[in-house]
């Protein structure tokens, strides 16, 4: 099967790759662009470890085909920090120990950032339901929820 040429933008950088029409955006990010921050936990859109933004919309990159990225803007965990300045969520996740093994962390950060951009003052219930698509098996979510709530509070105060 011949491959398709795709031009897209990832974390603000123009990139291009050749992909098989069956390959997912996650495959392309990881295997063709060496952006291995997004993880494959399930490949069926259930775990959220591959979460990225596609033109600002939160998606599971395992449910998007690589060819669908043509002309789009993709945001991954690698683009959350600005240079060596961490996003407040990233710093708070370290401070709160809101991760244990860390495999779900990239997806949860991308998802939480998307939440706070839409809703700077979420309730605990809103955070829990927004992150219900991101599985974490280590933490019981307690410290994750606290980290997101506290980041939102900080960002509101400094805004």
């Amino acid at each position: 099967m011949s491959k398709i040429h795709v031009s897209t933008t990832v974390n603000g950088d123009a990139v291009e790759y050749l992909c098989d029409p069956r390959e997912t955006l996650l495959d392309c990010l990881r295997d063709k662009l060496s952006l291995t921050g997004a993880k494959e936990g399930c490949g069926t859109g259930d775990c959220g470890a591959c979460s990225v933004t596609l033109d600002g919309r939160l998606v599971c990159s395992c449910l998007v085909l690589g060819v669908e990225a043509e002309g789009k803007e993709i945001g991954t965990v690698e683009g959350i920090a600005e240079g060596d300045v961490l996003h407040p969520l990233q710093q708070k996740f370290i401070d709160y120990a809101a991760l244990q093994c860390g495999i779900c962390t990239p997806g949860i950060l991308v998802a939480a950032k998307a939440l706070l951009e839409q809703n700077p003052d979420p309730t605990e219930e809103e955070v829990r339901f927004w992150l219900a698509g991101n599985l974490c098996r280590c933490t019981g979510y307690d410290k994750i929820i606290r980290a997101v709530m506290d980041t939102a509070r900080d960002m509101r105060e400094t805004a």
Partner: protein
Amino acid sequence: MALDDRKSDGFTFVGTRPNRPDGLDKVTGRARFGADASAPGMLHGAILRSPHAHARILRIDTSKAEALKDVKAVVTRADFSDKVEFAPGLEGDFWNILENVMAGDKALYDGHAVAAVAATSALAARDALKLIEVEYEVLPHVTDVDKAMLMDAPVIRQGAADYSVPEGMHPNVVRKHESGHGDVEAGFAEADLVIEDHFTTEATHQGYIEPHACLATLGADGKGELWCCTQGHWIVQKTCAALLGIETANLRVTASEIGGGFGGKTTVFIEPVALALSRKANKPVKLVMSRSEVFRATGPTASASMDIKIGMKKDGTLTAAQGTFRLQGGAFPGGPADFTAMCAFAPYNLPHVRQVGYDVMTNRPKQAAYRAPGSPMAAFAVESVIDELCNQLGLDPIEVRLKNASREGTKASYGPRFQRIGLVETLEAAKAHPHYTAPLKPGQGRGISCGFWFNHGGETSVSLALSEDGSAQVMVGTPDIGGSRASMALMAAEVLGIPYENIRVTIADTATLGYNDVSHGSRVTYASGLATIKAARHAVEKLCERAAKKWGIPVDAVKWENGCAVPSGPNAGEFDPLPLADITADMGRTGGPISGHFEATPEGAGVSFATHIVDAEVDPETGKTKVVRYTVVQDAGKAIHPTYVEGQFQGGAAQGIGWALNEEYIYGADGRLQNSVFLDYRIPVASDLPMIDTVIVEVPNPGHPFGVRGVGETSICPPLAAIANAVSAAAGARMRQLPMSPPRILAALKADG
């Protein structure tokens, strides 16, 4: 002893909560997990798996797959070492693992590997699998533990039982455990109330979010490199070397960052297959499992069928207890029937106790360790009966547990006498916690349960090297699954007296450190921690020697204080304190590099107890349960990094909630797993759970220099029972089967009403 007074404990670094050294890598996506590695010229592997629960493999034809241009190697069982021999009973461990990673004469479960391919791309490898022809003779199968013990059940494998199994039992029963003390019949005769009941739990998966992944290179010279996500790379090294017939030291294994394990990554599945493919293709091969493969062919925990009988006096005194535990461990020996039996009654001081466990084979994947393997299901059964006894006798469940609690000196139900333990302290803390007396709303119930786990020591090596600038690098061999690098650095800082930030802890590969047992048994902070402390003390001895030499005084006149060598007393002479960095700056000229190391098998792990309090709400119309409040109280011995201790408590509770309410392996009549994706095998999501409160109790373990007890596993022991007791109270009906899914709860409500 509550954690609040911890800074009066004499520690400087231990007990503080610094950020983890791997934090930055993990929040930026830089951390490299199993599937994140690649190598020049790398091929991609894929595994063909049996669609049948039990089938004889008559023929495998790989010629069409091999004819594809993109395919560089195909392997079957014939490509593994023929020196790994089957031995009767449980002795053929390597053979069992080989049989599990690549089927021999028979496929023993749905998902059992039968062949593998390496090709130039992952898609090409998957396409090639479809061209492999396997002719099966489908055999009768059994997946249920009680049915597998019936005399007409299909035999998974003749001759797998060991000496412990009495004659007359079905060949699927492969091991029997029996222990206890006293005369249970006499004990039951003394009781005012005896309750006997039957309980079942389903198999659940460890559910780590990272599927198994590895990158393997094995050359014709018998030398190999393996990168993989594992809880213990030395066991991977040893096992893979045996299965491939190469020398252990010729295979270097590097542990990647690990995306969760919970016991499920303590053995090998794909690693020997990737090495066999690499050897045949003469190229590096990357092999990554899909989620469905993870569910079908790795883990899960054993399922259980249990009979419990307990006697109690009117005042709450337990008089006797007995239990029979049948553990379904998949198509191989190894179900943790012994652990289940031994943990069942451990929290209680019982004059008469007897427990029997049976390890039973079925046509399911080989069970793997899952966080305190065997203990949670035992606690579910036993603590449910104790709850029912308390209910029927009108007694407070914590008072009854306090009255009967195991203490220092108690003869444990499984044999030894307990040393200093903290069960009573967890019960007292639970009783004093506001949660225990908080009012409940209509439709809610409260449950409590105790839990027990042995904890483990295990073979351990640690090496610590000082740098010229006074910083230290610590090499440990236990993969960091929950923040252990931070704990190791804290313990090293405590001994060396240098800042936490000046210590870098690395998980060494198998070529750069001596043997280390797996990160399991809640052993890492205990055993690697002990070894880190002793390695640091070893380095301190050498630092003191250098100071003594410089000052021209005997070494026993020098002591180590706050990161400096100082004279040990007024008679030693007058010298200014000599900081570590001043000694290391000169070490090349004063005797050479300064390192410390420690190798041993520490055996004072110190058992661990917990008490959990749960409030649950049951919707009588839908049968849905919501956990509305959860408190974990557990003895940590000494919390090195309290935040990560809390994390272990919370994580264990959350996994227990899933096990209690949602999770189960569901097999169809055809013996195929019906729910091999996360959509259908539903682990708790953020919106399912409340905040999980934690209370760290610290009753120091006499077997560790700082008092540490492992905390990783005990946290999953009480939840099943605590939730079942809460749900039973809320529903007004005793729940005897896990998971307590809505249909089961509705059925219980109907039967009761």
